[in-house]
């Protein structure tokens, strides 16, 4: 569907449409140790974009260590506070439209999470 410019868009499209990821809003505040309906979908999301390296697509609704680790990596990559909790800024970011290419490929990310922490030495030197 192509529109030449913004003024040509029908008014009914000016409202937010439901997308596959809007359901993530109900997961606000979820954290490690909980079992909440819908967490399996967010695991699928993280699997799709490379944050969960699991060949199985059968995900549970448990907020387990795998999900917490994936969430922290995601938060680091997108400059969010690495709380490991599905807080409001993280949820707002998760539902944004985005490129379908993965952020993490073969378990390796070269976004923020694949770089050394700020302040750590990036070059080893030996005194003579």
């Amino acid at each position: 569907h192509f529109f030449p410019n913004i003024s040509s868009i029908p008014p009914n499209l000016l409202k937010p449409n439901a997308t596959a990821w809007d359901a993530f809003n109900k997961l606000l505040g979820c954290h490690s140790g909980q079992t909440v309906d819908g967490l399996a979908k967010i695991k699928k999301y993280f699997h799709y974009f490379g944050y969960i390296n699991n060949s199985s697509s059968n995900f549970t609704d448990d907020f387990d260590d795998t999900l917490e680790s994936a969430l922290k990596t995601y938060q680091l990559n997108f400059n969010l506070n690495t709380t490991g909790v599905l807080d409001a800024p993280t949820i707002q970011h998760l539902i944004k439209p985005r490129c379908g290419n993965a952020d993490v490929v073969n378990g390796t990310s070269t976004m923020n999470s694949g770089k050394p922490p700020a302040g750590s030495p990036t070059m080893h030197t030996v005194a003579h």
Partner: protein
Amino acid sequence: YSFFPGRPRWPANKRDLTYAFVPQNGLTDDIKIVFTRAFDRWSEVTPLTFTEIASYQSADIKIGFFSGDHNDGEPFDGPMGTLAHAFSPPAGHFHLDGEENWVIDGAPIVDGNFFSILSAVDLESVAVHEIGHLLGLGHSSVEDAIMYPTLGAGTRRVELRNDDILGVQELYGSNPNYTGPNPNLTPSRGSDTNGAPKFG
């Protein structure tokens, strides 16, 4: 900036790349010119050139709008969600979700947002990003870089930033006529992960 694993790029004897559109899409010239502008942004900073040709089969870069499952193992999900994807060099496949509401001319721009539309996407913004993948760039954590993975609702982001330029020039070198970043892109208050100034 980042690269795909193994840093794939177009070979040294491939600097003049061709592109073509899926004939079945029947795209009009005003849509095609959006892609021309997007390619121009990358050729401005590299020795690469991009030329549209009619033959889809023989083009280096193949562009098409598809809906749902389109036989590459990465089905599209309807409006919003994932907008497009592109393959690393030298595959050249560039797929866009045909169920999005694509805006051909996102101008006028006010502070980077063309309107508070939550269900329409600026085509050129997505095209510039995906061409970055076609050239070998991965995603970046620099928020205003073209290669940042998300595109906020109603946002137009088409200008290459320092992060994008440094990345693509590491792969292909600089265009001899390139004179440096756009001076109209003023530095923002933030900094990238290396502590270097970023532009916004």
